């Protein structure tokens, strides 16, 4: 049975079909939530909330083929809501890599990854979501825009700003522009 059939059956109240959809998507969804939120517990709550919303609102999905994009939209919006609610409460995020690195220069790799991690954490949640959907999930930018419910230009500018911010953190070898001189400064 393909995903379209499962979506249609789940939309008619078939919970077994919905269980199959959850089984097929939860691993990827949990990873997306963890990347955006940088916290296992928050990611778990966000995924659970997203699936509950999906089950509740599935009868309203007119195009079953767009289930994946729709589910990601529910998840990303839930993640962004979570971060907005917690913005005033500082949270020490857990940074536990799930897989070990497998590159030759381990010291340099760790240094770069630390910088990447720091730069990523400094990004706005909206920018994090764009990067994750584009570079992790593999969505095209128009698909990212549709998933997030924003105009294409907005998605493009968020992506550009996110990359620029990361380049600034990682330094000139990643294409960062040197800091401009202040007006009246001495060269």
């Amino acid at each position: 049975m393909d995903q379209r059939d499962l979506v249609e059956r789940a939309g008619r109240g078939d919970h077994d079909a919905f269980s199959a959809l959850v089984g097929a998507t939860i691993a990827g969804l949990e990873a997306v939530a963890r990347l955006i939120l940088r916290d296992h517990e928050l990611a778990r709550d966000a995924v659970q909330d997203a699936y509950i919303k999906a089950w509740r609102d599935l009868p309203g999905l007119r195009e079953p083929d767009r289930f994946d994009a729709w589910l990601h939209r529910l998840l990303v919006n839930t993640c962004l809501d979570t971060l907005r609610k917690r913005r005033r409460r500082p949270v020490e995020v857990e940074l536990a890599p799930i897989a070990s690195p497998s590159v030759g220069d381990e010291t340099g790799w760790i240094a770069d990854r630390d910088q990447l991690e720091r730069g990523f954490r400094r990004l706005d949640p909206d920018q994090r979501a764009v990067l994750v959907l584009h570079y992790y999930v593999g969505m095209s930018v128009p698909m990212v825009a549709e998933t997030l419910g924003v105009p294409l230009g907005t998605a493009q500018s968020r992506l550009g700003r996110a990359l620029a911010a990361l380049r600034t953190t990682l330094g000139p070898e990643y294409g960062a522009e040197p800091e401009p001189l202040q007006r009246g400064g001495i060269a």
Partner: protein
Amino acid sequence: MNGTDRIERELTTWFADTATPQTPDWTADILAATARTRQRPRWSFPARWLPAAVVPRLARLTLTPVPWRTVVLLAALVLLLAAAVALYVGSRPRVPAPFGPAENGLVAYAELGEIWTVDTLSGERKKIVTLTGGNEAPRFSRDGTRVAFLRQAGGAQKLAITNTDGSGLVESKGESFVQPDTDSIAWSPDGRSVAVVANASPAPVLGGAPRRTIYLVDTTRGEVRDLDTPGVDVEPYWRPPNGRQLMYVAQTAEDDRGLFIVDIEKPGADAVSVSEPGLRPGGWTPNGEQFVVHHWGIEGRPWTSLLDPETGTDVSLPIAFGRVSNDGMRIVGYEDFIGEPVLCVMSLPGGDCAPIATGDRVPDWEHTAGLQWSPDDRWVVVYPQEGRLGWLLLDPEGGPPITPVWSERGVESWQRLAP
């Protein structure tokens, strides 16, 4: 490989390394939670029955999170601002409009060089100006918050302004006023200026006739400006509602007078009427559309007309020295003035004139302040027989007259209060 390519590659690798998809061990919890959740009925989704073109816009609307925190904060700020404005406005004394009916406030008068006010209900007196020298001719501002008066001290004649409690004294700067006309003191509607007629400076050489002019005194800085209105005689009147113009009567020949209007922001004055002996000004109607003119007819009978200064058309009324009520609906004046004088009230624009006083209670028409309306138009104030009866309040509806508790004090100016 450029920097962007490299960062994209690094990012993709880092994502893949740090977020390898694994089925979490709490999947069953989610399924249990969803199993307990009821699905929304299909008909409750607008996407199921609205046109497809509408749905995307609707979906964007419904999925965009409402920034409740911002909305609440903004609402709180708006409420706070509204409360502050209300507090500020509420803390300021309410004042009446410069024209139209108002509530009756205090009565001001001068006595032995001091300025007094009297409460018209209780008769309680209060001395508000005790400055050395001679202080006379108090005039309340149109909003009732300040008093202007003439002040003679140290050999100089000045116009002075105070708050109604005597505080905040401002005196006219520059040269002393020469022969200021006490009846001419007139507050502008906005309270920024007081007009007063006096001899122009410098005085003519060889004892020629002095030139009279209207001076405007700034009520906050005391600066004096000559409006250059040669020959002005008796009182000028600010035109409602904004007071940008003043109407006045000026001597045009030895026995002739004309009506002139001057814009306070422009040089020079415009003649409004042909010269006429015995012409006197009687003030504006409250809407500023007509000016009350007092004439002496050829047969020696006085009459009143309402003149439209823009068109030159007028309405003649068979009464003498008419004074229009604050609401502009009535006019009080003298009927059959030459024979037996009768004071009567007529509706505007005309009709029968209903007598309100005869005989000893009819005031002397030569006294400018001897015939006036109370701020609330409830009374016509008169000063008959040169004050031998004291001040009287006549009922414009024809009721019995009243001798107020302040009858002996006089009504040089009656304060207007907010209704």
